[in-house]
């Protein structure tokens, strides 16, 4: 299987995992201060960052134009 398919699969998984009906009524405080609904979705954000990093590595389009000739900034 090509890595790109795996990355798109992960993104689909993220979208499914986002619908966390299993924590709907859970009032647990993770580490004693972070409501689980918030902790779980903060985790989704971190997972999204990692998945999109993989996407830029394995799914990046190869037919892009060369850099522009404008003045460079950081």
């Amino acid at each position, binding site marked *: 299987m090509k890595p790109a398919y795996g990355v798109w699969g992960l993104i689909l998984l993220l979208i499914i995992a986002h619908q966390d009906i299993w924590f709907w009524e859970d009032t647990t*405080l993770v580490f*004693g201060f972070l409501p689980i609904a918030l902790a779980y979705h*903060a985790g*989704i*954000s971190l997972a999204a960052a990692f998945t*999109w990093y993989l996407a*830029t590595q394995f799914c990046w389009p190869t037919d*892009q134009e060369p850099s*522009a000739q404008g003045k460079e900034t950081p």
Partner: protein
Amino acid sequence: MPQLLIICGYLALLLILGLGASRLFRGTSQDYMLASHSIGPFLLLMSIFGTTMTAFALVGSTGEAFKEGVGVYGMLASSSGIIHSLCFFLLGVKVWKLGKKHGYRTQVQFFRDRLESRWIGAVLFPVLVGLVIPYLLIGVMASGTVINKVTAGTIRDGQVVGGTFEEGTFPQFLEQAKNPKSDEPASFTYGSQGGVPKPLASLAICGIVLIYVFLGGMRGTTWANTFQTLVFMVLGLVTFVVIAWRLGGQESFWASLQMASSSIPLEKLTRTHIPPEKFFTYMLVPLSVGMFPHLFQHWLTARSAESFKLPIFAHPLFIAIVWVPCVLIGAWATSDLISIPPPVAANPNAVLPFLVKQLAGPVLSGLLTAGILAAIMSSLDSQFLCLGTMFTEDVIRPLYGQRSLSDRQQLLIARLFIIGIVALTYALSLFEPRRVFTLGVWCFSGFSSLFPLIVAALYWPRLTKQGAYACILAAAGSWLWLFCASDFAAQANFTVNVPVPIAIDLDGYWQLMPVAAMIVCSTVTMILVSLLTRPPSQATVDRFFPKT
């Protein structure tokens, strides 16, 4: 008074930054509007993030968490982390490539070419401007509220104590307001409360942003955005620590965090009041970034396609850094550790500035307010600039031709149009306020309903100009209809209820976000009309979908 001085100092600093950027301005409309395609990964990340994180993200998310609980993060923040980056990846990079190749500066120019339709702008331009206005309104309203609340006094026994200004300093119409939940006459207690009156504060913010946008154009805006994004991220975290510590009142920060969170009422920790289907359809709201005109313009400023990589994967992280503290703060405000006075509780937009004012000292609260204003202004500036660019490129140039206007004339026209729109938005902000979050969701929903159009234009060769017109009209029509049905956003929890068998849902219906209905409307219309009309010419298909 120290708060006001610090806020004024920060605004002066921004003006100096605008002046500095104007020295780098190359004097051409290309540089003014697109910074000559020279923006690298870091500045692109900061400007895109600063632009998408508005008053909605700070003031709105805290206010909404105060009303609805911690589920707010899942409804919009974590979904945005997935969807925004998806849009940057699938749309942004492709748009940049086409823009660089064909010299586009606005969305309408792209659609005009892709759809072989000279007049698509006549339909798309008013719709886009019409949707940007509520977006601007969020920033204008919130900036006035924030400055007012931080400089206002506190209410003791129905009297205002310790405000920056005495009652009578400003004319009555600026100082007095009505309690939206009662028929009592307008009063100082529900008005400026000794702070800078909201209309004056909003006007000052509009003026400052206009000046630095006019001075520096896109380059100045990008630098100001980067600076302001850093400011609001750092000061946002400081705000979180200060509020947690003071609210929890324990010796250690960790113990204070635990104390503050353990005091949140149980109903604010769960999502029992949010139907899962509504939560699911909330995920369609962040699709709006695919059609934000100001974001389209930021994409075009990129130096290369590679510049997009950092924004794509860092964006979800940045969202978490800003939203998690804001949502927690909003939930803490519902606890019995702090008493929220009725005028503040009646206006969720005021919750964050109220907490800052109450829990931080005067100097710190001035600095923290500067951070909140930074988030607001870093969106307003891009929107102002984009409006001017769109008017010049999509209205004036097609009407007067390519050579009849000099660069200087184009810039002047762009600036006059920006002033006109800002004046209109400011006038709207003087009417009865809406919840920033609710207004934001309506605005984003409108842009999301146009999302199928940009996707089809980039990935579906069979899209025809008739299909595009039908899509825009269906999106605008369904948005207007539903917006009216919600009493112009006065019904904060408005949903579209779709009947379903009781075996599926015991309520007998699904409560969906209006955006779902809008997207279905625009997509179905676009596909049907495109399939029923003549396909685009082979030349256009070859131009936009070259065989590799």
